[in-house]
């Protein structure tokens, strides 16, 4: 949201950068990066050209890293011929349609299952599904909806393979500045842990489904510094002075250091992390501007609670969020028509024949061994 408006690299330039980059670096894999690459309007052509480029020796694989692959058309995958076949990641983000409407993640179950079916039918056995828990208005029904989705994916997989597997990756939701959820009081550590265990217990007897989750203690610390103010300075310094480095690494993260530092500073988690903020209170980033009107965000926040989804504003009428007009630029896109199956779901005939090896990786870096 912060990086609105959308600016696309011209497809010709992408082709040149890909071809010359592969030649110079010797890599046999290229990632087309951005938050949601399948939304790039020139994607089909670029992928087709890269894979078919004889100078690449027909040995190049293309990755589409994204945490939000709802827009990914498996039709695109049909163009990618020689890639290694690792897992495929989809990010429905929430377990029920109601919950996805709240977060404006308008992917339907039908679209997800169609994409999953297509992938299984074309050779993949491992899926990774990325979800968040602790979302605004989330109920246990929403949390358990994740289990329902995962089971359905396994069922579809069994139609094609003996032992398909699904890994459910569950993150804790952290509200961020300049988003409609900047006022939302984050779920407590205890509440996140309860929801994680609820899902774990639900999936206990399901073969083929593995649940991985992010430590709610680290989610709290992330929330603390995401929306905190200058009073957090002494806390961060205190954690560091007591040896708290590499806090991104689960084996180094130490909640005790953060709690002790908060106590020494006379501050409470509650005030920075868990409390719902009010419309009239000052936010620590009010003196900064990301180009989005605060009243637009507030309206979006109220709409989210009312479960009103907005469509992708590149193709539909302007919602006057402020990100474009303030800079005197419109969304710059390389193609005048939306890509088939854009943000609103896969929406494309997925039954593209042949092998469709594609590498889809989460954009969040995977921690490599610490030494």
């Amino acid at each position, binding site marked *: 949201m912060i990086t609105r408006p959308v600016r696309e690299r011209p497809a010709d330039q992408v082709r040149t950068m890909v071809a010359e980059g592969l030649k110079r670096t010797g890599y046999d894999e290229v990632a087309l990066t951005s938050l949601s690459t399948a939304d790039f309007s020139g994607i089909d052509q670029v992928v087709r050209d890269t894979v078919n480029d004889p100078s690449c020796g027909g040995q190049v694989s293309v990755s589409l890293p994204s945490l939000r692959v709802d827009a990914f058309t498996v039709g695109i995958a049909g163009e990618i011929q020689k890639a290694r076949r690792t897992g495929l990641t989809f990010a429905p983000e929430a377990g029920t349609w109601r919950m996805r409407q709240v977060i404006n993640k308008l992917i339907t179950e039908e679209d997800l299952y169609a994409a999953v079916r297509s992938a299984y039918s074309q050779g993949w056995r491992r899926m990774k599904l990325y979800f968040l828990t602790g979302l605004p208005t989330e109920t246990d029904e929403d949390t358990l909806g994740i289990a329902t989705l995962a089971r359905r994916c396994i069922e579809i997989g069994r139609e094609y393979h003996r032992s398909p597997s699904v890994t459910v990756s569950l993150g804790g939701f952290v509200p961020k500045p300049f988003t409609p959820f900047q006022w939302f009081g984050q779920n407590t550590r205890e509440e996140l842990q309860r929801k994680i265990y609820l899902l774990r217990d639900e999936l206990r007897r399901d073969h083929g489904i593995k649940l991985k989750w992010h430590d709610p203690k680290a989610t709290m610390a992330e929330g603390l510094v995401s929306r905190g103010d200058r009073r*957090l300075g002494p806390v961060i310094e205190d954690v560091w002075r007591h040896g708290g480095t590499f806090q991104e690494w689960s084996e180094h993260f130490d909640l005790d250091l953060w709690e002790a530092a908060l106590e020494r500073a006379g501050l409470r988690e509650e005030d920075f992390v868990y409390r719902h903020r009010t419309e009239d209170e000052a936010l*620590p980033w009010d003196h900064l501007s990301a180009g989005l009107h605060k009243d637009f965000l507030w309206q979006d926040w109220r709409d989210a609670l009312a479960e009103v989804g907005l469509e992708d504003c590149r193709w539909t009428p302007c919602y006057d969020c402020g990100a474009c007009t303030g800079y005197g630029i419109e969304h710059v896109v390389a193609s005048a028509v939306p890509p088939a199956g854009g943000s609103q779901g896969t929406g494309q005939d997925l039954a593209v024949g042949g092998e469709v090896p594609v590498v889809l990786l989460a954009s969040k870096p995977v921690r490599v061994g610490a030494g």
Partner: protein
Amino acid sequence: MTIWNQLEPLLGKVQKPARYIGCEDGAQTPHHHPDSAAWLLAYPDTYEIGLPNQGLQILNEIINERADGVAERTYAPWTDLEEQLRSHGLPLFSVDSHRAAGDFDILAFNLSAELTYTNVLNMVDLAGCPVRSADRSATDLLIGVGGHCTYNPEPIADFVDFVVLGDGEEVVGEITEVVAAWKSAGKAARIDVLRALAGVTGVYVPALYDALFDDGMLVAITPNDPAAPEVVEKRTIADLGAWPYPKNQLVPLTEVVHDRLNVEVFRGCTAAAGSARPG
């Protein structure tokens, strides 16, 4: 000045010494000049995670193409090397020419994850620079930050001298001009360069603002200096096609995350209003 001769014997005592030697295909060894602003671009996590960061690679190339700027790179030393550096009295260094961090003018971090903030403090300290900006003198490093997390820089406001909001491609050149001019004039008073930086659109200088609290609640954050704008606007490059960077993506000698060619096809995000990780 390079510290390679003191550093080299220590690398045999730590895990993964390839993290610290540079020598990537595409790496540069820029020629430092007394009048050019020298940037040490930092990622506050390990080399494996930081090396592929496209933002730092883009800025590294853009600065080194300028006549008035040079840039090198550094990453958080793992705990074993930190121990060795501290016990031998050696500072943080660049991986390109193994120059001591204190020989640069600017130490600038890409902030992509909030939990790396304590590493930022650690690296500033290892660089031999006071961690609090109020304690720094004219000859100390300027500490800058940019990247996703800087839309709320308040928790680290005490430790950084300037914050870049939004796209860095254009503003990095403007900051280079300001710092190079201040350096050429003899780095008289630190407040002068801070004021000049606050005049660059997209640059926030926390020291020039006061945060007011009442009864445990934030009331407002307002400028305390006429050089500081009331609201700092983020920078946005209008045309991604005008910035085909990185032109020479670094190819590391050791394993890193995202070990492949990366081509950014668009920037910006319109969908998922409540996305947990807004771009």
